[in-house]
């Protein structure tokens, strides 16, 4: 397999995964939680890099990123238990708090003599060309995991998001399934940051899912559309950044998916106008 093919395949799969988990995220009105989780992986990655004595193993960095994401999710839940701290305040606080710690660690790493830096900076804006074979496999397994969990728990996930109180009264633990969704989002973010960058990874969760929300009023159709749109715009964006090498992968992917959104929104509005006349 060529490098180009492997990178495109990786982007296709992670677009698919983000489309799936992002659909639930926007239904929970937590679109911006993706951004918070995206920034919170930085201290995790840096800590893993330091703790493993500057190992370049992608799996070590992935594990670190995942711990950062989960820690931020838990802290978010804890902070919003007080009525004084509203959810959006907690998001902003966690986002910059974790990022600042990560930035401090990154600065320290950069000042260590003779340390190979594992393209740590490319985690900020993303570069699909830096993906390795191991990254590809972790992206593939997270896509399979996401799809599997959403298919088998579809009815529980839906009722937990739609009507948590009713879910609880009929024996579906809404809190547990909401946490499962948060973990799926964390997994999607963690495997995507190397290609898309932590600044823009939230867009890959939000935009394809938003486009799909304009196209269907049925949850399963929406999930299918969001994952297809995510996959297509991620691979198309990655291809553009390959042929125009001065455009980083993340921004290219975002612009392609926003283009899809604008097209869908135009058709949506035209159809609405037709119906009203």
């Amino acid at each position, binding site marked *: 397999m060529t490098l180009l093919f492997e990178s495109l395949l990786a982007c296709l799969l992670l677009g698919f995964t983000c489309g799936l988990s992002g659909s639930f995220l926007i239904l929970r*009105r937590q679109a911006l939680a993706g951004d918070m989780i995206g920034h919170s992986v930085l201290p995790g990655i840096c800590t893993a890099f330091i703790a493993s004595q500057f190992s370049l193993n992608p799996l070590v960095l992935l594990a670190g990123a995942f711990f950062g994401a989960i820690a931020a999710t838990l802290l978010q839940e804890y902070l919003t238990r007080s009525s004084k701290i509203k959810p959006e305040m907690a998001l902003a606080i966690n986002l910059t708090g974790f990022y600042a710690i990560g930035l401090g660690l990154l600065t320290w790493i950069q000042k260590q003599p003779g340390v190979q830096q594992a393209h740590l900076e490319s985690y900020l804006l993303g570069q699909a060309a830096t993906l390795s074979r191991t990254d590809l496999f972790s992206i593939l397994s997270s896509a399979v995991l996401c799809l599997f969990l959403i298919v088998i728990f579809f009815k529980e996930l839906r009722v937990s998001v739609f009507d948590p109180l009713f879910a609880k009264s009929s024996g579906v633990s809404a809190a547990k399934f909401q946490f499962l969704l948060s973990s799926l989002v964390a997994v999607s973010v963690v495997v995507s940051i190397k290609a898309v960058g932590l600044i823009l990874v939230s*867009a890959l969760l939000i935009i394809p899912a938003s486009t799909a929300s304009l196209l269907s009023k049925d949850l399963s159709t929406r999930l299918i559309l969001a994952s297809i749109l995510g996959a297509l715009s991620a691979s198309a964006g990655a291809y553009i950044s390959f042929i125009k090498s001065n455009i980083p992968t993340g921004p290219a992917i975002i612009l392609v998916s926003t283009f899809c959104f604008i097209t869908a929104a135009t058709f949506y509005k035209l159809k609405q106008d037709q119906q009203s006349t």
Partner: protein
Amino acid sequence: MTDFLNVDFVWIVATGLAASFLCSWLGLHLVLRRQAMMSDALSHSVLPGLVLVYILFGSLNSFGILLGATVTGVVTALLIEVLKRQQLLKEDAATGLVFTTLFAIGVVLLQVYAGNAHIDTQCLLYGELAFVPLENLIWGMPQSFVHIGSLLLSMGALLILFHKELLLTAFHEEMAQSSGLPVRAIQYGLMIAVSAVIIACFQALGAVLVIAFLVLPASFGLLLSRDFKSTLLWSWALSLVCVPIATWIAFVIDNNIAANIVALEFGVFVVAFIVQREIEKRVRVRIH
């Protein structure tokens, strides 16, 4: 120890404090309107406006800050409002879509016109207070300090002037509208003000850390107090303690100053939060 108390250290702490005071004042208004995440959105969507200003003027001056801020603040808020009003998206998804797209456009502009603009993405993402003393001097003071300081004075005057209007629209929008206040104009004005502050601070703090300056001290204040004035004073107190200490630590361990300030404030906030939760729990137990 005395090595650090040189002119550089003083300028850095002064700039950090001015930025903190300015940001937490404006940020408190943002937080009270439940728009804390607009700080995140605006801090990213300023990028295309900023690149535009650099392409036009070659450097950052007061007029450039104002122009870039107006364009960014209005465009971001307007796009989000259109998506919401047209019932295309809910507020959170609309915000996420708009700012990531604008940021992506900014990055592409930056890469294409890299030769003309004297900024790079690194600087935007990190920010470095340590460079403040190395900047061009205006009236014998570093450029960032002058920009931030003059914004603090002018913005402070505006915030005092419109204090009751801002609070009323934040507390109950419909009531404010029915009593004849220009609710939308106030909202857009606030967005422009926040964008101006972000642009003025970005060289020193970076796009992501400026969010913390806007939201963290204000949230700390709200944790400890219930009225506007004492909330603001508590948030300033947090900065007054954290900025010099964190700057000193950053000097000693040779690290990014803004990141150290935010990390320290974040730590203090989390500890204060935990302590307060525990106290509340004890009080409740005593009631029963």
